[in-house]
């Protein structure tokens, strides 16, 4: 009981309000994603379970943070190909270690939200360290919602967010999935769009219907994440995802089932779709924006093109957060804020080409002013394109108009809704 009471203290009441009565300003409409999904469920029937797992409320308070010390080590779990690489090193992390003496163990272990959540969940449930100090979870996933909801994230140290407060862009500052950035700081954002091979697809058009075109039977890749797959279906049946109903979901599922039974889908992929798209095993696929841009960088895959369909493209944000029982929280905090320096972000983005959380990194790409000058120069032969291309790319520093046409994910209001969604879309992916 007392633990339960503590939880009310840990989680900002405005968060609940935000979930139940979404205030739809334009920017926030974009962020209305699946993140808060679990809240209703846990406030209701599952409260007992949540109570059992709730951590000490003192964790993450000002007093708690004041007691933390640097351990000069950091375990960082991220998605693959999501940070600058130069000859087996990460220049941005190297600079971090050089200036702070914090040794970073950076592992690219996250393939998708659900399975990574299952990796860390048992440890958290048992009250043990997950082995990671920073993990990166997507706002469209129910798993980020679970983590916040169950009190499995350490509230961030407000005093250590200097760069963030100064440089974070409006897209990811105070987002709807984590009001006031209590638990998370964005790593990168991006679109789930349509990617195709221009050698194999001659008249792509601008519609998401390309994914359902019988001409490309057996040559279309879809995502194996039910959230992503379902939203592609919703866009294809002409429904606004954020305000869709269960009836719309059924319609979308039917469309996707037909796409499968017609033999259009080659396979349901995780991150491996990009490999198959490059190899020509598939001609068209659901894709993440940065992947296509990265592939396009080297002359070999000039033929890979990203299309943001006129029906809309789903916009998501991956978020850094500190899991409970993390062993080096202060080191994690230091690193997270370090990535909000425009200098750092210019180096990361030169390689990454996702949507940059720090708009002023654009200036740093055009006119580097510090250590990033040498780093960018060293990266250049690897990347093969001038920094101006990244700086002027509308998929890295998007115009407000481009953001406005993006779509936000559906926000689940109960576990029953999540189950209903999964029951519709999972059989398509896992079915025989």
């Amino acid at each position, binding site marked *: 009981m007392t633990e339960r009471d503590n939880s009310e203290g840990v989680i900002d009441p405005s968060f609940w309000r935000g979930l139940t009565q979404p205030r739809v300003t334009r920017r926030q409409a974009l962020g209305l994603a699946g993140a808060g999904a679990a809240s209703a469920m846990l406030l209701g029937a599952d409260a007992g379970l*949540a109570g059992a797992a709730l951590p000490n409320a003192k964790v993450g308070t000002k007093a708690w943070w004041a007691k933390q010390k640097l351990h000069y080590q950091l375990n960082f779990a991220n998605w693959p190909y999501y940070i600058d690489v130069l000859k087996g090193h990460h220049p941005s992390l190297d600079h971090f270690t050089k200036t702070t003496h914090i040794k970073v163990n950076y592992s690219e272990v996250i393939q998708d939200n659900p399975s990574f959540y299952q990796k860390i969940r048992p440890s958290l*449930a048992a009250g043990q360290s997950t082995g990671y100090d920073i993990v990166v979870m997507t706002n469209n996933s129910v798993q980020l919602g679970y983590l916040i909801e169950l009190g499995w994230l350490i509230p961030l140290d407000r005093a250590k967010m200097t760069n963030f407060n100064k440089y974070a862009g409006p897209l990811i500052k105070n987002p709807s999935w984590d009001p006031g950035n209590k638990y998370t700081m964005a790593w990168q954002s991006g679109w789930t769009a349509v990617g195709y091979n221009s050698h194999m697809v001659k008249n792509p058009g601008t519609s998401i219907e390309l994914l359902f075109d019988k001409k490309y039977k057996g040559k279309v890749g879809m995502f194996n994440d039910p959230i992503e797959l379902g939203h592609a279906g919703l866009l294809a049946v002409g429904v606004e995802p954020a305000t869709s109903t269960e009836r719309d979901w059924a319609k979308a599922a039917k469309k996707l089932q037909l796409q499968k039974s017609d033999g259009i889908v080659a396979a349901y992929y995780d991150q491996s779709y990009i490999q198959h798209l490059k190899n020509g095993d598939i001609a068209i696929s659901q894709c993440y924006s940065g992947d296509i841009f990265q592939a396009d960088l080297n002359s070999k895959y000039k033929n890979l093109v990203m299309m943001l369909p006129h029906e809309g493209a789903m916009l998501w944000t991956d978020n850094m957060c500190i899991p409970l029982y993390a062993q080096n929280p202060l080191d994690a905090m230091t690193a997270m804020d370090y990535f909000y320096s425009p200098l750092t972000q210019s180096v990361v983005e030169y390689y990454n080409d996702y949507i940059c959380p720090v708009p002023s990194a654009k200036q740093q790409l055009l006119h580097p002013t510090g250590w990033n000058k040498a780093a960018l120069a060293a990266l250049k032969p690897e990347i093969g394109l001038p920094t101006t291309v990244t700086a002027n790319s509308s998929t890295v520093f998007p115009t407000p108009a481009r953001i406005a046409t993006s779509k936000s994910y559906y926000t689940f209001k109960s576990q029953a809704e999540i189950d209903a969604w999964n029951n519709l879309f999972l059989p398509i992916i896992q079915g025989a």
Partner: protein
Amino acid sequence: MEQSVPAHHSRSVKPPRHRGLWAKRLAPYLLSLPAGLWLALLFLVPLFLMLSETLKSCSPASGVCTMTWNWGELPHTVNLYRTQFITSLLFALFATVIDLVISFPIAYWIAFYGGRRKNFFLIMLLVPFFVSFVIRTLVWEFILSDNGFLFSFLHHHHLVPAGFHVLGTSVAVVAGLAYNYLPFTALPLYVAIERIDHRVLDAAHDLYANRRVAFMKVILPLTIPGIFAAFLLTFIPAFGDYINQEILGGTSNTMIGTVIQNSFLVNADYPAGSSLSVVLLAISLIGIFAYARVLGSRTIEEYL
């Protein structure tokens, strides 16, 4: 009670033998205790735990499971995924039969004509095992890919119809299974054929059996236990395999292993995953017990 008497009596005469008596009685148990405990706690207990897991209900968020005696979970889940079970059974069966057909002649040849190079040929049979399972499956993906060197060559020279592809089809999965488990088939067959006394064959020939008759009436019957062992040792791992399907398969050939793996590692649906595992184990056990019953549980070890 009895032990103490001779022990006392003999202490003066033959000390070493006597001190050992107590220990001797306990020796087999002491020797097998560490391994026995390890297997009991980490092999048998988990299997029973899994059985109880099928009756629980788990929260998808926290993953906390409570016992709800949900007897309906197992039949429900198995019914839901029966197509995947059938797919797995068929794929494993095809792969095993292909392996038996491929490896019988070569096992026969090595056993009878291998001569001094027998060991060399055996290593050649085992060669896939010297490369990681995951890597060799990845290499097959690399080879079978539409734009890989093999198919781009075939397409370029119009040796196959346009649009012909293997990766992502059931053919690719069965081929991958057959490749990966071939040594499991070939070795038991080799051991079985090798064991045949050549004089029996000579006798058959002396009795005017031609080669086919000698093969059908002598070699085949004598290798039946080996064939059965080979079948079991190939079929069971292939049945539960999911790597081949995940790497080489497409949308319409999901195997039960994939579903089990996803239940545990992606969806956190332990009851469903446990139910499917229990049934997978049960099907395997039918084969294992049939084998143990007919040929004895120790005989399979001879083929390892």
